[in-house]
């Protein structure tokens, strides 16, 4: 755009000193002719950084002694103990990786609808009142940034000369990715104790930044958590047929988007395995409240 291109050139010329804001023929405030007089005598002052006499640091520490015996492997779990979920992590924004205590039976027939994610928010009860936990559907926090490819027609020269009126910067906004559900369950090649869950939409940085919203408030905690409903045919099980137990399965069976219960924080999430949201350089939470419809409150 003509106006913006010229504006950048002008500001660059001002910054370089080629253009001055006010003509100062008598050497006024803008006169910088004497500036070069100060650029003397500092080039040979020597470095002022680290003390070279400090203790030396060995840049190549010795590797472990290969003659030492390896630590013994973990003993296999007893045959009558069901497999347990050890952890859940984001392998990429669209894939969860679940780790279990032992190898699982083939998961080809496991229905992905047995899994559901929640934004689990706990109140610790320190203000008075009872501790409680609220589960919220991810659609309200998984907001993606949308920047329309064709921003509104710019107006640089057209009055009223208002920068904000003209909208000539690309205009972006946040919108929900919509329902976020598990769409597929698959084994992880080379690791029979793990499996992968595909998601219908990638986890967004906005969601991860929301998790940090209460990090300075000990009265609240918010986590991303996976829920699982066992039972019936085609559930997760180990090689001996023992099933993986449910984990907060009421949320899986519930078709609403908000679910609250009294009691200890995250009490139905046992084991409590928050999913680390560490895929992104998380930006500050934009000042955009989640778009929660009145009918859901």
């Amino acid at each position, binding site marked *: *755009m*003509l*106006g913006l*291109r*010229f*504006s950048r*050139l*002008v*500001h660059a*010329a*001002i910054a370089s000193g*080629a*253009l001055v*804001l*006010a*003509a100062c023929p008598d050497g006024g405030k803008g006169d910088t002719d004497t500036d070069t007089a100060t650029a003397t005598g500092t080039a040979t002052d020597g470095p002022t950084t680290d003390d070279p006499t400090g203790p030396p640091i060995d840049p190549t520490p010795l590797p472990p002694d290969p003659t030492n015996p390896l630590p013994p492997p973990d003993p296999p779990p007893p045959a009558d103990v069901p497999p347990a979920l050890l952890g859940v992590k984001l392998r990429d924004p669209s894939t969860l990786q679940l780790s279990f205590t032992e190898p699982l039976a083939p998961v080809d027939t496991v229905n992905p609808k047995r899994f559901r994610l929640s934004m689990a928010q706990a109140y610790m009860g320190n203000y008075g009142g009872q501790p409680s936990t609220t589960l919220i559907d991810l659609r309200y926090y998984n907001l993606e940034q949308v920047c329309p490819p064709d921003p509104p*027609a*710019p*107006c*640089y*020269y*057209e*009055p009223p*000369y208002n*920068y904000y009126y003209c909208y000539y910067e690309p205009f972006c906004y946040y919108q929900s990715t919509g329902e976020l559900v598990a769409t597929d369950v698959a084994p992880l090649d080379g690791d029979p104790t793990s499996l992968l869950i595909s998601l219908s939409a990638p986890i967004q940085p906005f969601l991860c930044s929301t998790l940090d919203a209460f990090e300075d408030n000990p009265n609240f905690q918010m986590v991303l958590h996976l829920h699982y409903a066992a039972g019936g045919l085609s559930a997760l099980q180990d090689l001996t047929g023992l099933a993986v137990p449910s984990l907060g399965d009421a949320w899986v069976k519930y078709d609403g988007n908000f679910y609250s219960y009294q009691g200890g924080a995250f009490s139905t999430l046992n084991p409590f395995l928050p999913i680390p949201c560490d895929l992104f350089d998380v930006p500050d939470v934009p000042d955009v409240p989640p778009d929660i419809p009145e009918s859901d409150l």
Partner: protein
Amino acid sequence: MHPALHPGSPPPADDEDVEFLLRAVPELAFFPELADCVGTGGYDGPWPPGREAFAGRDLADLRDRALRGLEALADRAERERSGGLAFIVRTLTYFLVGPAALPAVEHPLLVALLLRGAARTHEGADTALEIARAMDRWG
């Protein structure tokens, strides 16, 4: 008239003032000192024309006339003690001639003058507002 072009206007004090002043070019193109720079035609397409309508033309004569007009405007700025007008004249001159000179179709004042010439065959287009809108769509 754009407030920064009035007699007695102060020079810009910061980037915001500069931005405000740069938007005065369409109105500046209507100052009498630049009347000789407005062509008499050479464009009969739809309004507003884009840069491609003038690409490849020899516009050296327009540049010379604009320079003389800016010199006259510099005299006006001094006479009227208009720091805003002086700055915009100085800036447009800096990018009109010399090592920082821009191609004619990139120089806002030359573009405004070209548009004024083209506007003569379009009723109601030869106004500062319509020239400003056309400059915004110049590309």
